[in-house]
């Protein structure tokens, strides 16, 4: 049963058609890598799925629930969109941590704001906050950040910042976690550290979609690889299929350039 389904998603900026009908699907617990040269529309695809851009047409389903429908998206209210937003998480290339909050507050801020909307919040406030804090501790521990809880973002390395950003996304318990080139802003050693964390999330059964230029990572970790070129999915399949037996000449050309 697919947990993510994207049907014929299209998006243009003015006359520039950036997504020309993207369809894909992903099963629960699987990891999908999206590769492709810069400008092929990878970021735009992720931003459309995460409501940072509004697609022009197409459909997006998460867990059988339609979160976006190009036919009637105008009817969506801000609150509804917010609810749907929480089913998916996004980790940015530039981390985008909140500089004035320490690591722990970065991770818990949104969760605590969300909890305030619960009907039983007033009655069970202490218990609810305690649970949120405990869960945040556990996630930060998983991310290898238990000793950084009181640090502010500027005191952390890029790799640590990105792990905080991942923890922040996980705290909201998204069904699918998206990464847009999570290591592109990092030095090689820090890249390894972050990729390790993403790998460990896979063993915990997380469903993830990762846009990446790290071909080794894509090959080793993914269940599915998608190669995007000029706003279309040029090739898709298992890592073996895409990396070892690409059927499209564009894929071969891209791969040979990437492995140079």
């Amino acid at each position, binding site marked *: 049963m697919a947990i993510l389904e994207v049907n014929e998603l299209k998006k243009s900026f003015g006359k520039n058609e950036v997504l020309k009908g993207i369809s894909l699907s992903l099963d629960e617990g699987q990891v999908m890598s999206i590769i492709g040269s810069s400008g092929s529309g990878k970021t735009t695809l992720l931003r459309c799925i*995460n*409501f*940072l851009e509004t697609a022009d047409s197409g459909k997006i389903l998460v867990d059988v629930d339609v979160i976006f429908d190009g036919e009637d998206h105008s009817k969506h209210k*801000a609150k509804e969109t*917010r*609810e749907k*937003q*929480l089913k*998916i*998480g*996004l980790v*940015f290339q*530039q981390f*985008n*941590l*909140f*500089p*004035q909050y320490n690591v722990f507050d970065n991770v818990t*801020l*949104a969760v605590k*704001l*969300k909890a305030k909307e619960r009907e039983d919040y007033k009655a069970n406030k202490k218990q609810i906050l305690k649970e949120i804090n405990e869960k945040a501790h556990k996630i930060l521990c998983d991310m290898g950040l238990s000793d950084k809880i009181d640090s*502010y*973002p*500027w005191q952390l390395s890029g790799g640590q910042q990105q792990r905080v950003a991942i923890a*922040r*996304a996980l705290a*909201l318990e998204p069904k699918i976690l998206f990464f847009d080139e999570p290591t592109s802003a990092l030095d090689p050693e820090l890249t390894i550290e972050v990729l390790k964390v993403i790998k460990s999330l896979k063993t915990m059964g997380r469903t993830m979609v990762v846009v990446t230029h790290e071909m080794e990572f894509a090959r080793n970790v993914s269940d599915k690889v998608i190669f995007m070129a000029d706003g279309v999915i040029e090739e898709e399949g298992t890592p073996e299929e895409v990396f070892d037996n690409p059927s499209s000449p564009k894929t071969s050309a891209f791969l040979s350039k990437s492995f140079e």
Partner: protein
Amino acid sequence: MFWTVTLSLLEGFMTTLELFALTLLFAIPLGLIIAFGSMSKFMPLKWLSKTVVWIIRGTPLMLQLIVVFYGPELIGGWFGELGIDNPIFNWLAGMKGLDRFPSVLLAFVINYACYFSEIYRGGIESIPKGQLEACQVLGMTKSQAFFRVVLLQVVKRIVPPMGNEIITLVKDTSLARTIAVYEIIWNAQKFIKNGGLLWPLIYAGAFYLIFNGLLTIIFAKLEKKMDYFKA
């Protein structure tokens, strides 16, 4: 003599302080409204705000003081001469100018709100877009994003330029004498006219120095308080 001068200067300084404090009280929030106006997606509002800011920043405060003080009466008078009989204009013509202090205050508030609005706008626009996007993907509402995430970063950025502007305001209050509001320099100058004494004027300068020194310390403290994060 020293005590006479001190008392007179203190009296003038109270007016200075009052003008200073009231200007801040009104201009700080009004500036925020103008800033949101000039960032609005609603074009008429945007252009109105931008035009007002352009005019106010492009003309001397002294001129604005005079216009606010004499303007209503004169405008009312013109319409009267044109034979337009309108209660509003009649009322304006009969005003003999606004009271001095309120009209000075009004001019100062408008002037400083415009300067503040530009500082706010610069501060808000300098926050990376990624901050708001992160809030959005974390499911925060727009107001949560503004108050919980963006605001403090903006404050951190605008404290230094606001400090400069506020120290300028202290000195600008002396312009109130243009329309005979008896602030500290007006009172100091009396002693030149009446007794040929120059030192009260220098003494008045000391009031400004001390007050601005205090403000400088306060702003340095504020900046220090937000040193714990970098943005």
